[in-house]
């Protein structure tokens, strides 16, 4: 019938018209954010990059990088990497235990636990760090408790050293790791574990051979994420670390605010940036590999 032959054609015209209209509208709507971020995010970072490569009297130099990667500066960089690694490992361990427990809680308790994880994330890190300073001091809550139970060697020095910094940064990064791990753990198909148990696998075998491989992507993402976020983090180390516990971000702040050493600060900024990109690159590659493996499996 002519009517039915016409109808789909008409509809098709309409959709393609709609499509063209939509991509025009999308283009217009994408302009504000793109322009804003190009001017106030990308351009300033290019500014940092070019400043880090500029000699005192103009011209190109790698002097600032050589400077950043030697002597005291190098040791600050190394301790930043060490603190970030320690924080990532610790928040991964603690986060794994918590996320695993939450995955097996009754829904009401799980919701309450997630609330306690998420709410602190939205409270200023400055404020939470201050809470830790009060708690970890020589006469703070932790040491008072430990002394009262006659812990050997108490009171401990938990503040103004690396221990204090890592405790503080771990509490800041923990919500991220718990959320990422929670997401992955929720996706694990319980039937696989039950099947393994049906074939007589022990709990340990099930955990190491089935559960861990299934949540491994989450572990990688959570660990790298807290490592990356820690690299440029500064509030907790500045407030909870001693004079010796400087991190790169604190050094950048000092160089700009107190010493007017912009080029050197810029070089450190670019180093942080490159380390971040490296971390993100690893994350992206791992994701790509998983996708490829999944595609190969589904096609074979």
């Amino acid at each position, binding site marked *: 019938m002519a009517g039915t032959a016409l109808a789909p054609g008409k509809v098709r015209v309409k959709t393609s018209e709609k499509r063209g209209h939509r991509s025009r509208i999308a283009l217009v709507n994408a302009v504000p954010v793109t322009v804003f971020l190009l001017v*106030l995010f990308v351009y*300033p970072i290019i500014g940092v990059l070019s400043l880090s490569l500029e000699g005192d009297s103009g011209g190109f130099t790698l002097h600032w990088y050589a400077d950043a990667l030697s002597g005291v500066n190098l040791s600050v960089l190394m301790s930043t990497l060490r603190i970030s690694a320690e924080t990532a490992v610790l928040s991964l361990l603690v986060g794994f235990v918590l996320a695993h427990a939450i995955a097996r809680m009754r829904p009401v308790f799980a919701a309450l636990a997630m609330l306690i994880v998420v709410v602190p994330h939205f409270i200023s890190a400055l404020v939470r760090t201050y809470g830790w300073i009060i708690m970890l001091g020589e*006469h703070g809550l932790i040491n008072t408790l430990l002394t009262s139970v006659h812990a050997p060697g108490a009171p401990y020095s938990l503040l103004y050293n690396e221990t204090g910094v890592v405790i503080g940064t771990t509490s800041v990064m923990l919500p991220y790791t718990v959320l*990422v791990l929670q997401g992955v753990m929720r996706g694990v198909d319980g039937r696989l574990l039950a099947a393994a148990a049906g074939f007589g696998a022990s709990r340990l075998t099930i955990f190491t051979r089935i559960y861990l491989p299934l949540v491994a992507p989450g572990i990688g993402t959570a660990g790298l994420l807290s490592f990356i976020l820690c690299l*440029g983090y500064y509030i907790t180390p500045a407030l909870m670390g001693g004079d010796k516990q400087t991190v790169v971000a604190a050094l950048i702040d000092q160089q700009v605010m107190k010493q007017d050493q912009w080029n050197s600060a*810029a070089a450190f*900024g670019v180093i942080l*940036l490159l380390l971040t990109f490296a971390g993100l690159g690893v994350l992206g590659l791992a994701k790509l590999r998983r996708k490829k493996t999944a595609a190969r499996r589904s096609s074979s």
Partner: protein
Amino acid sequence: MMELPPTRAGHIGRGLSATAILLFLAMPIVIILVTSFGADGIGTFPPQEYSTRWYEQMAAPGGNWATSIALSSLIASLTTVFSLILGVTAAMALARGRLPLHAAVYGLVLAPMLIPQVVIALGLFLFFEPAGMLGSPLAIALGHTVLAAPIAVLIMISTLKGIDERLEDAAASMGASRMTIARRITFPLATPGLIAAAVFSFITSFDEFFIAQFLSTPDTRTLPVLVFNALQFDVDPTVTAVSAVLIALAILALALVALVRKLGGHRNQQGGFLPTEPLA
């Protein structure tokens, strides 16, 4: 999720470790709230005596704290306006339209969440310094928008994706104009998301430290900058009351968002606003 029958020991072990870790997360906040009502100076817990003197000191008109609270509120309001404009338009492009270079724009929007904030702050310092805009509330608000806009975009994308487009198509088929559809259908359905985006932009700015630190001058110090200085250099016990107010503000804001989402009929997706989401 594990479906193996739980062992008793495992059950107790998990319960205890989870409780300990949750305490680890909550304790610093509880400590601040209690200490802020302590009459004795900084850092004594539990306090020997209780009073509200630090709160009175904080609110004293013309004082440093009152001035910086006003400044932070102004900057956070500006940031909210900027970030809503960018968030709504960007989400229209990314969630609804067929955008050429979709991935590139999406990546650009997410990037500020992952790049170290100190680098962004340094870049903005280099950008605003030659213009003589250091210490300008507008400059700080523009800087904060770099961090707040991505959050607003993500929230608005999930909001727009949650709206059934057939409702708009239905209205259109009945002859409603684009403006009418936007005003009568899309906007009311998007309101909970808009409020969430506004609240999160506001707290992002109100709590932000790095950019404010780099762009401020001694006359224009936002609240976090003042708190940081108080904690690093002097021991002004007023800072406990200020911290307690910041905690209360964050909890109120989250409660508001939860309420609006509930009224709007959205299922409560915890953590859906966190920057981890695009990565996970």
